[in-house]
């Protein structure tokens, strides 16, 4: 039980201007409530108060406290700054980083109510999600990301000194084009740490140094090792590889070591963001669910007064507002709304199930809602979460419907609505919409002509007849050509195994 005087808290939290005591109180109270009432297991919080300018900086570095230098971040900064100055864009109230300790940036011009809200939202909700969701557990190491970014920054700067800005920039540009294709989906990467990375580099250099032999240099550079491994007819690689950056890093025939290292850095960063892109709905939904419950608990325990609650409810409804598809403000499905609604519905089904729920979710009936919510938070990602938990009630409440868009047809066809026949379809389609392949084309390394030309062949597997944007694909191919340093081909193959499209960079 915290030692806070309820009366003092009420006064403090209803004073529109906050001080550090307010923030400390909000942090301690929410942490205590999160732990006692909602079983939240979190990283230690590091709450940082920042100005709008610093928030813009944080935006540009996609939330990390530091990153390697690159013009792309400068461009994002300039764009954000422009739209912020023109008033087209508001800055978010907080930004939270998947790190241990969990760093969250809070804007200095938040009102007291907003401060309490974002502390409950980010420092409890997101924080617990980062620590416990399986995607984050498997794919990121929160304790070492900042350390690694420091290593990456120093390494890139060292390369700039040694090899020139232009060359470093070209490598990074090329890698950025492949960021979406630099992700391991099935293997768990080892932990990152700048010290270990530096040691690894040193070992590499040392091994090279020791095994260097002037005599060997005069031998023809035949790939002796490869020959023993693969006979002439065998294909390399034996299995297709979907992590293009990884493949280039490990297999580009003549790429110098420092470039390989840059490829690796971008790949690691891309991997770090992978869970976040896969759990947007869940992450925001859970954080919103948590701030909603924590603030209500604080009110119930008389730490907050009515005025505070009015402001809170106004902000909360703003956050979960979902404009309908034909509204000018519509810009896709609001992940806060969808996630919050599903989590709230899990709670409702556990507590007050209807006949329909008994049929759809027999496993949830009569269970402890908190355990079920935590279980869902820990073990799913957006597509599986929706496939598992999107209930008919949420579909009805949000009036979800599915449209079939065939490029050859002159019509859109409504393929499912919120009725008995449509629930399963809507759920399936919406789940697919959050599947990675919906957004990112499936492109894999098919083969390398290791004996003659070193030509790299990539295979795009066409899904749902979606073709690549030709112009962008061509530019990207040029980037791959630059990294690979030998000709590159890209085949687009449909399900029947017929190549529909072909492009190359010689």
């Amino acid at each position, binding site marked *: 039980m915290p030692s806070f005087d309820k009366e003092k808290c009420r006064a403090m939290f209803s004073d529109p201007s906050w001080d550090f005591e307010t923030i400390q109180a909000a942090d301690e109270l929410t942490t205590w409530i999160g732990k006692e009432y909602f079983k939240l297991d979190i990283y230690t919080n*590091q709450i940082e108060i920042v100005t709008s300018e610093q928030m813009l900086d944080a935006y540009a570095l996609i939330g990390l406290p530091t990153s390697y230098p690159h013009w792309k971040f400068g461009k994002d900064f300039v764009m954000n700054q422009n739209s912020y100055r023109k008033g087209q864009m508001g800055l978010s109230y907080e930004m939270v980083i998947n790190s241990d300790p969990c760093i969250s940036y809070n804007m200095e011009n938040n009102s007291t109510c907003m401060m309490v809200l974002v502390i409950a939202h980010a420092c409890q909700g997101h924080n617990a999600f980062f620590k416990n969701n399986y995607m984050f557990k498997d794919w990121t190491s929160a304790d070492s990301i900042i350390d690694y970014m420091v290593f990456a920054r120093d390494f890139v700067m060292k390369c700039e000194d040694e090899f020139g800005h232009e060359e470093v920039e070209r490598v990074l540009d090329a890698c950025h084009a492949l960021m979406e294709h630099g992700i391991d989906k099935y293997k768990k990467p080892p932990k990152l740490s700048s010290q270990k990375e530096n040691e690894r580099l040193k070992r590499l250099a040392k091994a090279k140094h020791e095994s260097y032999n002037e005599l060997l240099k005069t031998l023809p550079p035949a790939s002796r090792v490869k020959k023993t491994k693969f006979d002439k007819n065998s294909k390399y690689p034996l299995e297709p590889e979907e992590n293009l950056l990884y493949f280039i890093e490990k297999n580009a025939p003549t790429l110098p070591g420092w470039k390989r290292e840059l490829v690796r850095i971008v790949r690691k960063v891309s991997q770090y963001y992978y869970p976040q892109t896969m759990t947007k709905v869940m992450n925001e939904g859970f954080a919103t669910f948590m701030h909603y419950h924590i603030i209500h608990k604080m009110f119930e325990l008389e730490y907050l007064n009515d005025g505070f609650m009015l402001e809170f409810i106004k902000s909360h409804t703003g956050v979960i507002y979902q404009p309908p*598809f034909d509204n000018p403000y519509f810009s*896709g499905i609001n992940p806060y709304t969808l996630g919050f609604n599903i989590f709230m519905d899990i709670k409702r089904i556990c507590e007050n199930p209807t006949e329909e729920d008994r049929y759809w979710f027999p496993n949830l009936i009569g269970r402890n809602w908190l355990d079920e919510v935590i279980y869902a938070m820990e073990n799913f990602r957006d597509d599986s979460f929706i496939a598992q938990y999107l209930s008919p009630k949420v579909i009805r409440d949000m009036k*979800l419907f599915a449209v*079939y868009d065939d490029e050859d047809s002159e*019509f859109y066809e409504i393929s499912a609505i919120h009725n008995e026949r449509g629930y399963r379809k809507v759920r399936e389609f919406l789940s697919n919409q959050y599947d990675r392949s919906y*957004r990112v084309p499936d492109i894999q390394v098919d083969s390398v002509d290791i004996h003659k030309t070193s030509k790299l062949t990539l295979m795009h597997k066409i899904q749902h007849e979606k073709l*690549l944007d030709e112009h962008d694909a061509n530019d990207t191919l040029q980037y791959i050509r630059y990294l690979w340093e030998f000709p590159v081909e890209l085949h687009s193959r449909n399900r029947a195994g017929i190549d529909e499209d072909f492009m190359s960079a010689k």
Partner: protein
Amino acid sequence: MSNIVDRRKNAKGKSINNRQKFLKRVEDQIKKAIPDIINQESIKDSTGEGKVKVPIRGIKEPNFRHDPHSGKKQIVRPGNKQFNEGDKVAKPEGSGSGAGQGKGSNSPEVTEDDFVVILSRDEFLKYFFEDLELPNMIKKYMASTVDFRQQRAGFTKNSIPSRLNIVNSFQQSLARQISIRGVYDQKIKKLKLELEATEDAEAKAQLEEEITRLERLRLTVPFFDDVDLRYNHFERVPQPVTSAVMFCIMDVSASMGYHEKDIAKRFFTLLYLFLSKQYERVELVFIRHHTEAKEVGEEEFFNSRESGGTVVAPSLRLMKKIATERYSESQWNIYCCQASDGDVWSNGDAIDCGQLLKNEILPTVQYMAYIEIKNRGLEGYLWHAYKKLRSQENFSMRNINDISQIWPVFRALFKKKDLVES
């Protein structure tokens, strides 16, 4: 335990470095936009801390992505009002581009076709005057107005308390304390040995007394003594100031309309900006003339309107007079820019001007530019008279009749000798 940090006082501008990289990336576009910017009015307030906006077309970051118009897709949307399963809705006319943007809203792509980079004045000038140089730029140092800069120069024993260097003083103090105490310590050590050796009671008492005396003395070594104190020392380093004076001479007779004056003003502004890039101090002298010449303030120079005929020579005489009186040739870099519509009262006046320029003005000035603002038709007397001086290295003349020509003419006047005009 949570950690609450106030970052607001931290240095902002983490992105400055990346912003510079980005600017470098769009350098070509910025340079291309410069003539347009001059044609717009934005340069007029160039003396202030103004900022300049340069529109940039998006620079692409390509990646493999789906063509949003291709394929067969199931799309889920919220807020159904009237649709039922199986309904068909016609695609909007010219299907594709119109519908496309809303469609792809799942991807966080931002449209960035046109966005604006805001350059600070310094950044802008850098691009603005790149590849240009001032002809005959000789740095004349002002003898009278020498500036001084403070420079750190080691330590000194005498100075004011606010410059006390504590670390250094403490080092001195430590050394002194150790060395002085060392003397006492040695003596005491010796006496103690003697004490152990003697048997005689009287001698013992004497030795003990001596030891206590020395030990008391040992404690009197002061922590800080005057000799320990060290102060940061600064030296005054003379900073020569390079300065220039720019004479702006403009014809304000009836024939100079708003349009002509506007062109002249823009040209003068450019020249001033350019000079202030090169010299630390630039003074301006405004001279206007119709039948007589007069030195005026900036406001009056550009804004008031007069009528009457044109006699040019008095303005040049006035300039010469001011230069001799106030800006001695040995200390000032003198620049002169004359703008006129080329009308003169008589051929005699024009010839006068030519003579003045040749004999009195050109030998003393660094550079003089003459711009004639009119549609090149018949050569006026003045143009004709000045033409003879074209071979002089520090004299240039150009004709301008439209705002859009200002920048090319300016570049032509000041381009680096080894660069061919693009």
